[in-house]
Every structure is written in structure tokens, then in C-alpha cells.
């Protein structure tokens, strides 16, 4: 293991693979995305294979996860948001499991890469924009011009509103990624303290690290939750763009 606390975020190819100049290797990041997919399937599909009206314990887990997302979408977007539940649920479960699997020792956290979270943020904002135009046509642009203001104000306000709208996927991506990078770096640094101090005293940073792991568990779930709820708030703009 390296002493560099940022070493854990390096992407390493496991199965090198190239088409022309494009590097399409199967990396440690890809591996953990596949593991996330398999874990999600294990949690969601397997208990539902023989779903019963009275759920058993495993079925309860998947139903609770679904009902959590259903509740968020229903509360934030309203009853029109039901058709977005598959999208929101997919984002929620991949962020949640990506964060949690990344906390395992030797694991790679793909949500700590802004490429991944940025792609998720772009997906959300593309869906919002496209569905906004599909649902409301050109009236969707009314989102950028709140009514009832003096005319000259619009000259400044409309660009600001557009920039604010465009900054959403970036804040969404940066928040998740920064939280993951910060948490994992702190964990690694305190683990290094243990090694450097050594001996009996070395147990103190280890105890502290154990506490940070529990905090990171909270952060992992909370960030997935915030990502979900913000996605819903943005989708709300596509469903009803009147402020």
C-alpha cells in the first residue's frame, strides 16, 4: 500500500482494451460499477422473484427502498412525478450502493470521480430540459423569466437564471464527488497516523478512524438522499415550471 492518501482514487486497468485511440479498458472503476449493479439486482430482484402479499424480511428491504424513493418523488414532484420514479430510483440506488461499497476495505469509490457524478448530473438536467419542452413547449422558457418585474430587470435576470439553471448539474456533481473524496482522504490520513505512530499509541488514531467510518456511513447515505431529493426538485421544474 502506498503512503499517498490520494492513491486510492487512481484508476487502474484490470483488462486492457483499446479501439483505435480510445481506451476502453475494464478498470477498477468499472469493476465496482458492475458490483453495484449486481448488488442492486441481489437486493431488488431476488426477493421479488417470489414476491408474496405478506413480505418476508428480504422482500421488506426492497419494498422499503422503493417506498422511500416513491415517497420522495410523490412529496416533491406530486402525483405527476410517478413516471419519473424509475429514473430517480436508478440514480438513488447506484449512488447509494456506490458510496457504501466504496467504504469496504480495498474497494474503489466510483462516486469520488467527477466524471461519473457529472454524467449523472448531466443526465438529470437533460431529462428535465427535454421533458420540460415536451410537457410545456416554449412555455418552459418562462422558467427563466419570473413574471411581474420591471422590463429592464429582465436584461440581467434572464442570463442569471439561465446560468443558475446550468449550474445545477455542476453543483450536484461537485457536492457528491467532493464529499466522497474528502471522507476517503481523511480515512486514509488517519490510517497513516496509526502506522507512523506505531506501538500502543498507534491504536488511538485507529479508534478515531473507526468513529470516522461511522460518520462516513452517514455521509454516504445522506449524499445519496440529497442527490435524489435535488433530482426530484429539478424534475418538478419540468412537470410544473411556474414559480
Amino acid at each position, binding site marked *: 500500500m502506498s503512503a499517498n492518501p490520494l492513491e486510492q482514487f487512481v484508476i487502474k486497468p484490470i483488462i486492457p482494451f483499446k479501439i483505435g485511440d480510445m481506451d476502453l479498458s475494464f478498470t477498477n472503476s468499472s469493476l465496482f460499477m458492475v458490483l453495484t449493479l449486481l448488488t442492486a439486482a441481489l437486493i431488488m430482484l431476488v426477493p421479488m422473484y417470489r414476491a408474496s402479499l405478506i413480505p418476508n424480511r428480504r422482500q421488506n428491504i426492497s419494498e422499503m427502498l422503493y417506498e422511500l424513493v416513491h415517497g420522495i418523488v410523490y412529496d416533491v414532484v406530486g402525483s405527476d412525478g410517478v413516471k419519473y420514479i424509475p429514473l430517480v430510483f436508478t440514480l438513488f440506488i447506484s449512488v447509494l450502493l456506490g458510496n457504501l461499497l466504496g467504504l469496504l476495505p480495498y474497494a474503489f469509490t466510483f462516486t469520488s470521480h467527477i466524471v461519473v457524478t457529472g454524467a449523472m448530473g448531466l443526465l438529470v438536467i437533460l431529462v428535465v430540459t427535454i421533458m420540460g419542452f415536451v410537457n410545456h413547449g416554449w412555455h418552459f422558457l418562462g422558467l427563466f423569466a419570473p413574471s411581474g418585474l420591471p422590463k429592464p430587470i429582465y436584461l440581467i435576470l434572464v442570463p442569471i437564471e439561465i*446560468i443558475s439553471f446550468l449550474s445545477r448539474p455542476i*453543483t450536484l456533481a461537485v457536492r457528491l464527488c467532493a464529499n466522497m473524496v474528502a471522507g476517503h482522504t481523511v480515512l486514509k490520513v488517519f490510517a497513516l497516523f496509526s502506522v507512523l505512530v506505531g506501538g500502543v499509541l498507534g491504536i488511538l488514531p485507529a479508534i478515531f478512524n473507526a468513529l470516522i467510518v461511522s460518520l462516513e456511513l452517514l455521509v454516504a447515505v445522506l449524499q445519496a438522499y440529497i442527490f435524489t431529493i435535488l433530482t426530484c426538485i429539478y424534475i418538478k421544474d419540468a412537470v410544473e415550471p411556474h414559480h
Partner: protein
Amino acid sequence: MADDQREEEFDRKLQQALVREELVEDKSKTEAADLSGLGYGMRLATEFLGGTFVGLGIGYVLDRLFDTSPVLLLIFTFLGFGAGMLNIYRFVMKMDDSIGVNRPAYLTEAEQTGRSDTGENPPKNSP
């Protein structure tokens, strides 16, 4: 209008009673505990920087397109500052954000601005 007021009054009293009887959590209390100070600060920072950098990026790209460097870069960076401040304002006033389970955005918006007579009929909470 009188009916609306009575209905609101009833909802408020019902909510208070539910909290008192511990049938539902008091949302006003749990909210502060949900978001730690560090998380709050980080959100503010990303909201602001996000706006600024998008403005900067737009200005840079438009400058490259029209060959007007650095006029548009400056204009759009300042607009980006504005957007960042707007993001922060919305976040602090809880206008486009709601943190806390079952705390819908439309409720916080109405609560914050004190506008209960917008004529909108928000959907009921439970599915």
C-alpha cells in the same frame, strides 16, 4: 376564504396534536440535526462556485466563438457571481431545496414567503 382559513387552522392544530402525541416527528426540530454545519457550508460553497464557474465557462466559450476576448468573459463572470448568489439565496430561503424526509418543497416555499393564497392546491402527502 373563511373556509380556507378554518381549514388551515385545523391542519395546524392537527399537526401540533400529532407532534404532541408523538405520532409524527416534529419536523422543525429534526431538520437542523439532519444537516451538519460542515455539510451546510459545503453546500453553500458549491452553490456559489457552481454559478460562478458556469458563468466563467460560458464567457470563455463565447469569447472564443466571437473573438471578443475578454469582454464577454468579464460580463458573464459577473453574471455568474449573480447566479451563485441567487443559488445561495434560494438555498438559504429553502426555495428550491428541502432537506428532511417528507418535507416537500412547495410547503417550505409557502412557509418561508408567507404566501398561502397563491391559489395552488398542493397534492396530498400520502400516496
